[in-house]
């Protein structure tokens, strides 16, 4: 089903596209003109609803619906906040967009802010990406000089100030409410929900938080109409999606795919990843960033019913957590048979242990506990009972925490044990072999 449709990356290779001049010459900012001159905010929201686009930050919540939940009390400002934190291991698509085609995001921010009635909007970017922040700031300056930002945009009477905010460099600051706390200058601890940001967000005012890719898509939706967008993709997974692919594939990188593309085609066709590196075979895939459940090669290609697995929200989650996973943020990590699942799980677990904000007891204590048990198994000091202990601790975290980081920490552990239990057992029963350099267990054959 390979399709060549590109709506976010079609212009990304044009030399100089990061400058206002080249971007504008190639049709840029047409959506701002159309939106501000010809459409009412409600009409824009309607188009976004029609497009069926689901948020690209991970949870996949319908964007138009989120926008329509925004409270509009008199006399209180509303905010649009763009989430450019992007710290999920395996996910690097927003970085790619912001760095290469910053005006696409800024154009989207103007259209979206106008639709939501926001006069001050923020782009929150991970602090380590200082050079991206500078690129965005330069682009904002250019757009402002051209009259697309600032006071009285295109003579419409609409004002918009756009601020780029460097984040503290903590994964948790990507969680929307922690991000808002951080923007307010506080420690990035997630807030309890409700109230949701749409009612009480930044500075207690109604706020929409959207991912970079989500916001960058709005220009295309305005230019071509929501219905056109909805024609792309499959089922409730409309449009295209950026996938950041890494791991043991021939051509890692960021790809724009039309949702509904078969996973097999994505991995093996030359248009995309070009297959697994020479002489090796696929062992497992993490399809949507480190937090989603890992799937073994057979289940990523086909669902438990034997149907081809597609790159879509529904198809990837087919089978629930028993045999499915999630599209998440689109961080596709492929692992061949040289990957030790135990080591990989420990590694993910180390990340969540390090990044838990430490507010709620199950996540604060549970992530550290899992990490330590996994460390022991990986280093040849595990006990057989540790495997069930891990499953149990993961279950006790899952669903019981303030924010989804707890789930994100629990799922990789639970799923790795579900699908690769014999590998954990082998580590425990063969501590000496398992700790040798390069030791990997697969299908009863051991590679050292």
């Amino acid at each position, binding site marked *: 089903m390979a399709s060549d449709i590109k709506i976010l990356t079609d212009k990304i290779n044009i030399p100089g596209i990061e400058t206002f001049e080249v971007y504008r010459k190639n049709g840029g900012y047409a959506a701002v003109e159309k939106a501000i001159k010809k459409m009412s905010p409600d009409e824009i929201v309607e188009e976004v609803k029609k497009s069926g686009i689901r948020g690209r930050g991970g949870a996949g919540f319908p964007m138009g619906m989120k926008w329509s939940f925004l409270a509009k009390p008199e006399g209180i400002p509303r905010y649009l906040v763009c989430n450019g934190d992007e710290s999920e291991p395996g996910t690097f698509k927003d970085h790619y967009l912001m760095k290469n085609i910053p005006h696409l995001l800024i154009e989207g921010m103007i259209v979206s802010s106008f639709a939501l009635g926001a006069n001050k909007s923020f782009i929150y970017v991970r602090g380590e990406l200082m050079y991206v922040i500078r690129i965005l700031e330069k682009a904002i300056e250019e757009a402002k000089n051209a009259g697309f930002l600032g006071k009285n945009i295109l003579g419409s009477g609409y004002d918009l100030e756009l601020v780029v905010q460097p984040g503290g460099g903590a994964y948790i600051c990507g969680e929307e409410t922690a991000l808002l706390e951080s923007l307010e200058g506080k420690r990035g601890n997630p807030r309890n929900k409700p109230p949701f940001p749409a009612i009480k967000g930044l500075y207690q005012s109604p706020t929409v938080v959207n991912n970079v890719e989500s916001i960058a898509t709005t220009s295309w939706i305005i230019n071509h109409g929501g219905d056109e967008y909805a024609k792309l993709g499959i089922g409730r997974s409309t449009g295209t999606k950026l996938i950041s692919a890494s791991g043991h594939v021939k051509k890692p990188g960021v790809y724009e795919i039309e949702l509904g593309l078969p996973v097999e085609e994505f991995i093996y066709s030359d248009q995309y990843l070009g297959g697994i590196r020479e002489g090796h075979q696929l062992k497992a895939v993490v399809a949507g960033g480190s937090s989603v459940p890992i799937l073994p090669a057979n289940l990523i290609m086909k669902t438990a019913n034997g149907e081809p697995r597609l790159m879509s929200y529904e198809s990837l989650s087919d089978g629930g957590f028993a045999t499915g996973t999630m599209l998440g943020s689109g961080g596709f990590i492929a692992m061949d048979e040289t990957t030790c699942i135990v080591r990989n799980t420990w590694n993910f677990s180390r990340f969540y242990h390090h990044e*838990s904000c*430490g507010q709620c*007891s199950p996540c604060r204590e549970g992530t*550290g506990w899992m990490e330590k048990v996994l460390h022991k198994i990986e280093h040849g000091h595990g006990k057989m009972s540790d495997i069930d202990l891990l499953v149990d601790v993961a279950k006790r975290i899952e*669903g019981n925490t*303030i924010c989804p980081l707890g789930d994100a920490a629990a799922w990789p552990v639970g799923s790795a044990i579900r699908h690769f239990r014999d590998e954990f057992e082998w580590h425990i029963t063969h501590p000496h072999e398992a700790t040798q350099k390069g030791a990997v267990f697969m299908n009863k054959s051991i590679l050292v």
Partner: protein
Amino acid sequence: MEATQLIKVTVDGKTVEVPVGTTIMEAARMIGPEVAPPAMCYYKPLKGSGGKCRACLVKVAQGSEKDPRPMPKLVASCITQAQDGMVVENFSNPDVVNARKGIVEFLLINHPLDCPVCDQAGECHLQDFAFEHGLGTTRYDDERRTFEPEDIGDKIQLNKNRCILCYRCVYTAEQITDSRVHGVMYRGDHAEISTYISKAIENDFSGNVIDVCPVGALTDKTYRFKSRVWFSKPADAHCNCDKCSGKVNLWYKGDEVIRVTARKNQWGEVEDFICNDCRYEKKKTSDWVIEGPTKIPRHSVISANKYAANTIKKPEFAMDFAAHNFKEIDDNRDYNKSLEEIKKSGDYKNLMNKNKALLSK
């Protein structure tokens, strides 16, 4: 005046009418202690508290009369507002009890069970929480995090080894003292409560952090190790204070006032925060107008075996649960035999030999 709109909430089969906006926790407390969820971080007088420890998780079996769908996950009752017709399962739902057991286990990872030496023993909410859920251990067998003692002034002892990061003291510092110098540093299980570069906490109301701390992480240096709580007798007293309400509990050991604290309600929450002068400086009976003996709250060990009427009744479900789930103990290990028989056993002989070897060293 418009009448307050009332909504009906049912917790573990008991229904109560509460004003709109009431949380599940507060509704349950109105029904009574037999259905009220435990709380380790929620503290009604402190704005913004709650939602962190997850000790109060409950199952919402019916969202409301209008929308009877159950909530998919367990919710923190202390921060979730009740809806009209909501049906909540608390002690009556095994999933809830199990999730709470999980919380006890998580909290005990970094909270030692050093009750015999901890000054909070008998007044520790975690001790009660663990006791109520039949758990005194955790399966965690790695090294615990430990901290060097940190000096935060001459009146308050901080023992971070016992801190469960409930944030109550942070809210107290934020809300009732004028210069906040302490808070939480770092993330995850490295998170620590601390002061700004080991600064002393010394503003007029700082002593209240001791009262809100649910465990023995913050204790009163002027009282530590003078007595155990169950050897002391509390009395209600007041004084004319220009800084605070002056309403306190005096804790007597014999004729001596060994400690002054703010008064707490049956949920262990302070009613009126008190100033440091009242807490630390007025330790003579003559400083106070005595009102009479304190009515002992259900949480206190002081009530054990004395105030039968005050103690918490075990809900019926618990009895049923126990009857169905616990079999008669079928244990024929050595220690159940008579002493003579034990003496003959190999285990006993081995033990004795070991002891001998040890003693002769």
